[in-house]
């Protein structure tokens, strides 16, 4: 075998080379070239893929270099490998990943560089271009080195490609084909390990396949901050390892599987499920939380099998959290609703769609007749794509006649305030000098945003200040963490924004800390620059045991800082899109207030709107408990597990005379419904999604509906039809066209814009300036994120479907931007009923329309919601806790008892064990040891669970994770109070004889 090797290395070797070393030395080299030529186009074919890291300031200068004889202008400071990528010259690589710092370990990217001291081999990933540099990526020397490295990498690689999940999408395979030697000269025994070994609940490690590129180790430490895996041992016994007994438990472990360039790391849910070449794929947006990470969805035989993060530069940089990555399996869980059902006595019975819709319509009609529209309430809708949220918002207002709609489940913030705040993007938060978080534990609730913020703090020098009732996953990176007494954050916000020094403790925070932060905020007032926010506030709900009014008041106070902008931390799926499209009381589609937009929407919808602002979820449940609600429509909502106060939720659900649940999964609330309508899940339908920034991206369909489930917009339309209103929608395009016409927020944002090549990262609404931010298609980098196939062929492009539809939409001024008063938008009234004054069949035109018609003149376009003019009253500050009681804090954890997580077997058991965390002095006072059971009692209920002593928690606070199996914090919380007080007692009654 080795006799056939070519190219003797030294004269000594040459002399001994048998004459039969036949294949002329040049021949294999020529083969390699040929292979490269055929492979290269693949690497740039797709629009999916990896963006180069954002340009650093000062990178504007260019240098002139030569790559393979071709003069190229490269950005100064760029690594050679980046300059080559930009120039379309591919340099093979393994350890290099564009989103991580280079380490130059694998040595695959060695290129020959002509320098002052002659030519030398340099790793292209670690050497920056410099003026006049002559780079040869395919010279004899470079090729020999690359080939040598590949041969070395294969020395101990098991070459078990036929049984390896990575086979077919493996950078090692691909680059061996393109850059490796034709055959191996290695005849010794390879390295052996026990395999595969689990390194966490979700990830398996096969050390034999590992090529020690360190991508996983670096990701864990550098990107995620969970340095739980590292290299152990030396030489070719080097292995990736966890510390004995400490698994790689990270919220981001799936990313190491994604970036592994061989099959060494595999994800439990995907192992042996499919072969890459059999996978169907679309690019879509993950809807598990509201960050809006782009992902490639892949299926095999019509079943979802895998998600791979797509590198969206403004959002997720290619990363996904494990919940987003693995929760897809919930859509095929046995818990899925696949058939409509109606209640017969105590049972839900499967029926046809016709029967179910009729039953639903009858119930809603009866409620409307009995108590008017005000007796109907719609709860939920953050699961829905934008189009469906709009249809439900419209159906509620003009078909059911109610403004009782709320996409938030009492766990968010007042919609009118949130929608009126100045907005920031994730990029702006990541580059702002000062970021203030007033919201949940971002690591647990918006995990990928945590990665971006962590990067900002570590690499961009962003100063992070946390206003939080308990330490969070971000606290490690915060310049200051102000742990306030629950229910008193508005006072704290007032203190840190005040002009005068703070001299006394505020909301339980030591005054020196408050003063330090106040001084810092004051300094950043002065560096406010036009164009970019100098302070970004990340705003959400810090604790579910604390009412939203204090948080809203605090936000309003912070909004008065100069140069401030807000990034939403409302967490649930498309909640930001649902609010934008009117699924909140008092808010109409397009961030328009009910009264502001009344005239406009009555004109366009052709029907009167509810007169009074409706109730939010808490209001609806309370009204229902008092018997004032005749019908509840639950749109993907489970108040029993999501509303902060289970007592109120239960009474509300029981008190409503009739309820319809439109959902994907059986939940506690669905079980109590009178009619259950199965909805299509995320991957089974198309649509658009709005993330925390207001970025609209395209959701693609990959698999077919489960059972006979329908998309929500169809359900809402059919229900409306049965209630006598034909909305006239036949496709999503109809709905979106209407949205872009009527919603001032979405003006000009056509499907073609969202899905076009120029806006792969989505479009921020409202459009600013010249329209969509244009980044251009990015090349697919199969070496950075292997497994993403060239997506073009698979992606169902809405653009192609829209060619006709777009042409049919009347000319509009959409691009002039939102809020343009007097804008003339011509078009039909959308909706069944015309205003009575309109002549049947007439087409309304704008003021600019030439002909006089007998129609109402079109009202001026409403403006977007702004900040409430005056500061909100700092109401309901709770008094001091009663002697001996603690103030409760309850927040979501990434893994919990939620429906989606529990529907996936691989994830169901990852949640933390229920426990209450308190200051050690509390336990000492009770005589209870760390880990022993305590009773946590509030006015509403009682839980018995272990207590954990945690010195980082203030002595007056108790922290209980939200919604863990077996311990529902909602059983303790009184949602009518600003803060909930609990008592913690030993679970062993005093005087009881433990041994007896």
């Amino acid at each position, binding site marked *: 075998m*080795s006799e056939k090797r070519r190219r*003797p290395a030294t004269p*000594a070797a040459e002399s001994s080379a048998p004459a039969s070393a036949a294949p002329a030395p040049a021949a294999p080299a020529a083969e390699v070239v040929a292979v490269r030529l055929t492979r290269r186009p693949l690497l740039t074919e797709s629009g999916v893929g990896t963006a180069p890291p954002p340009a650093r300031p000062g990178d504007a200068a260019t240098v002139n270099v030569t790559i393979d004889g071709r003069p190229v202008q490269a950005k100064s400071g760029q690594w050679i490998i980046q300059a080559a990528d930009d120039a379309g010259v591919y340099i093979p690589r393994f350890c290099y990943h564009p989103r991580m710092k280079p380490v130059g370990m694998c*040595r695959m990217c060695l290129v020959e560089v002509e320098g002052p001291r002659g030519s030398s081999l340099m790793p292209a990933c670690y050497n920056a271009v410099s003026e006049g540099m002559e780079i040869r990526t395919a010279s004899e020397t470079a090729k*020999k080195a690359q080939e040598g*490295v590949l041969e070395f990498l294969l020395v101990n690689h098991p070459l078990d490609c036929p049984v390896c999940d990575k086979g077919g999408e493996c950078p090692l395979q691909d680059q061996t084909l393109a850059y490796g030697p034709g055959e191996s000269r290695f005849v010794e025994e390879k390295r052996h390990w026990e395999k595969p070994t689990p390194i966490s609940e979700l990830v398996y490690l096969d050390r034999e396949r590992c090529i*020690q590129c360190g991508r996983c180790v670096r990701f864990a430490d550098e990107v995620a901050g969970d340095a739980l895996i590292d290299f152990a041992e030396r030489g*070719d016994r080097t292995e990736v390892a966890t510390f004995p007994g400490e698994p790689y438990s990270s919220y981001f472990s799936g990313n190491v599987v994604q970036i592994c360039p061989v099959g060494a790391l595999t994800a439990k849910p995907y192992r042996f499920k499919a072969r890459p070449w059999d996978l169907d794929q679309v690019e879509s947006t993950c809807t598990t939380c509201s960050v809006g990470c782009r992902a490639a969805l892949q299926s095999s035989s019509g079943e979802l099998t895998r998600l791979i993060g797509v590198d969206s530069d403004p959002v997720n940089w290619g990363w996904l959290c494990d919940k987003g990555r693995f929760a897809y399996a919930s859509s095929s869980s046995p818990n899925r609703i696949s058939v409509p059902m109606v209640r017969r006595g105590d049972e839900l019975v499967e029926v046809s769609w016709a029967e179910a819709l009729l039953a639903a319509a009858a119930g809603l009609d009866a409620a409307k007749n009995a108590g008017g529209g005000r007796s109907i309430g719609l709860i939920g809708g953050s699961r829905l794509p934008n189009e469906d949220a709009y249809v439900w918002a419209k159906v509620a207002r003009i078909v059911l006649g109610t403004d009782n709609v709320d996409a938030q489940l009492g766990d968010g913030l007042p919609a009118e305030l949130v929608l009126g705040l100045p907005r920031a993007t994730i990029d702006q938060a990541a580059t702002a000098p000062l970021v203030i978080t007033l919201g949940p534990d971002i690591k647990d609730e918006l995990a990928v945003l945590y990665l971006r913020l962590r990067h900002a703090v570590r690499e961009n020098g962003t100063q992070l200040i946390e206003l939080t009732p308990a330490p969070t996953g971000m606290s490690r990176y915060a310049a200051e963490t102000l742990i306030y007494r629950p229910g008193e954050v508005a006072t704290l916000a007032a203190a840190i924004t005040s002009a005068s020094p703070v001299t006394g403790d505020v909301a339980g925070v030591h005054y020196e800390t408050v003063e330090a932060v106040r001084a810092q905020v004051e300094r950043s007032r002065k560096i406010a620059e036009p164009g970019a926010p100098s302070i970004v506030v990340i705003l959400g709900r810090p604790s579910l045991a604390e009412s939203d009014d204090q948080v809203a008041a605090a936000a309003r106070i912070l909004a008065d800082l100069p140069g401030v902008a807000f990034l939403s931390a409302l967490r649930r799926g498309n909640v930001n899109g649902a609010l934008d499209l009117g699924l909140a009381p008092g808010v109409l589609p397009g961030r328009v207030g009910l009264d502001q937009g009344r005239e406009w929407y009555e004109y366009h919808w052709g029907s009167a709107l509810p007169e009074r602002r409706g109730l939010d979820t808490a209001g609806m449940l309370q009204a229902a408990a008092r018997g004032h609600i005749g019908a509840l429509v639950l749109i993907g909502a489970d108040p029993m597990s999501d509303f902060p106060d289970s007592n109120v939720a239960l009474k509300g659900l029981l008190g409503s005379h009739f309820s319809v649940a439109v959902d994907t999964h059986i939940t506690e609330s669905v079980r109590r419904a009178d009619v259950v309508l199965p909805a299509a899940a995320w991957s089974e339908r198309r649509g658009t999604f709005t993330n925390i920034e207001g970025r609209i991206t395209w959701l693609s369909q990959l698999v077919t509906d489960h059972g006979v489930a329908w998309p929500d917009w169809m359900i809402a339309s059919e229900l409306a039809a049965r209630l006598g209103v034909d909305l006239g929608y036949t496709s999503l395009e109809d709905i979106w066209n209407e949205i872009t016409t009527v919603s001032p927020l979405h003006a000009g944002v056509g499907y073609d814009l969202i899905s076009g090549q120029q806006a792969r990262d989505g479009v921020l609404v409202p459009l600013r300036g010249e329209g969509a931010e244009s980044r251009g298609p990015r090349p697919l980098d199969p070496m950075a994120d292997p497994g993403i196939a060239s997506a073009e062929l698979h992606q169902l492009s809405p653009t192609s479907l829209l060619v006709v539809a777009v042409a049919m939409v009347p000319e509009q001024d959409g691009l002039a931007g939102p809020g343009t008063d007097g804008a003339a938008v011509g078009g039909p009234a959308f909706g069944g009923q015309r205003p009575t004054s309109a002549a049947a069949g007439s087409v309304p035109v704008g003021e600019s329309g030439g002909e006089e018609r007998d129609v109402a003149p079109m009202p001026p376009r409403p403006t977007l919601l702004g900040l409430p003019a005056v500061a909100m009253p700092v109401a309901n500050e709770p008094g001091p806790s009663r002697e001996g009681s603690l103030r409760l804090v309850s927040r979501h954890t990434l893994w919990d008892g939620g429906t989606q997580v529990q529907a996936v077997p691989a994830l169901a058991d990852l949640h933390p064990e229920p426990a209450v965390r308190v200051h050690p002095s509390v336990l000492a006072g009770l005589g209870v040891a760390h880990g022993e059971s305590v009773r946590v009692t509030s006015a509403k209920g009682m839980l018995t669970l272990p207590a954990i002593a945690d010195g980082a928690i203030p002595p007056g606070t108790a922290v209980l994770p939200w919604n863990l199996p077996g311990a529902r914090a909602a059983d303790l919380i009184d949602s009518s109070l600003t803060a909930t007080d609990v008592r913690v007692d030993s679970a062993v009654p005093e005087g009881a004889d433990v041994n007896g």
Partner: protein
Amino acid sequence: MTITDAPRIVTRRLGKPASWTLAAYLADGGYQGLRAALAMTPDQIHDQVNTANILGRGGAGFEAGRKWGMLAPSKPVYLTINGDESEPATFKDHALIEGDPHQLIEGSLICAYAIGASQIFVYVRGEFPLAIERLQSALNEAYEYGAVGHEIFGSGFSIDIVVHPGAGAYICGEETALLESLEGKRGYPRIKPPFFPAAIGLYGAPTIVNNVETVSNLPWVVLNGGTDFAALGEGRSTGTKLLALAGHVKRPGNYELEWAKATFRDLIFDPGLGGGIRDGNELKVIIPGGVSSPWLGPEKLDISLSNESIAAAGSMAGSGSVIPMDHTTCVVRAAWRIVRFFHRESCGQCTPCREGGGWLEKILERVERGQGRESDLDLLMDVCDNISPGVAWPPAQTTICVLGPSMPPSVAAGIQMFRDEYLTHVREGRCPFPPDRLPLRLARV
């Protein structure tokens, strides 16, 4: 004769009773160099060191004074003493730390004063328990004596010294891996650029890493002047050099010789030095500067022991470890043992070193066990070429540090100088030499 006439600069106290104690050190004029140094300005000391032209004694032979001059102008500055001497058959620093720790402390302090360091770390190989113990107790004595710590000898110069035991990795002797290790990380050599710790070193601060022997010269240089030091030796190779003579000689050990004034023949055969080859055997080959250096044949016996002349002969003086091997030595086994050492100490970062080293080890073992093929000679050379392109000296490298390129010389030298011996292994299907004389336990390591 010239060899023995030269002053002994760093070893003169070795072998004296309790040479490692403060009392013995003070009795021999200890800490006078430091006192003299503190009376000088740092620049004056730097000038003396430049005049002395002290080449770094750790192996690379870079001028210490020039290295100090490359310090980035920022604070703090750290001084790190490399006492992680771990290469087979290298034991000069071991003797210096164990036998004269105060000299090391004094030299380090002079260096620290000259470069404006704010802390000294002495990184000592973990397998030198006695050296660590003696150094630590010497340090305690020095603190008590007022030579280390706050306001040294009332001069206003204050500094602390920390002794850091290594944890058993040869690679931590590579200066950047040493710094990583000191920082509490896995001992990975840092990728270059930055090329010198003097720019970015320990904790990102400018750092000088000097060898134990290098700084041990400083008290003498300060007391006697750089000119006196430079008067010893020849050319760039000034002063004396401590040579660790190992291998098949009658009298192995550390010998401090005036540099460039003796030859290999002197060192190996002088009755006061090596005393000749054991058992009256014939000299087969010399490893002139540690096991990573290319071998020299007996025909090179008369070249002088200086940096320049050994380099001119195609090898290197390295850290001063000289290993003559007699005619009973199997060159395949020798190369196998050397490669095995380097491979097993490879940090595992770079593919060519990690995998290439393992592969070389396996091929050499196969040849030694009689299962080699003639083509293995080409294969060995090509694998060497992929680790160190050209297999030339000084080595080109495909790796971050020079550990990888330390493997090919012994393989290439063996094949080039003793090709027939390799072929005999292949053709006879067995090793023609007797088994190791080492105890079995060692032979199997």
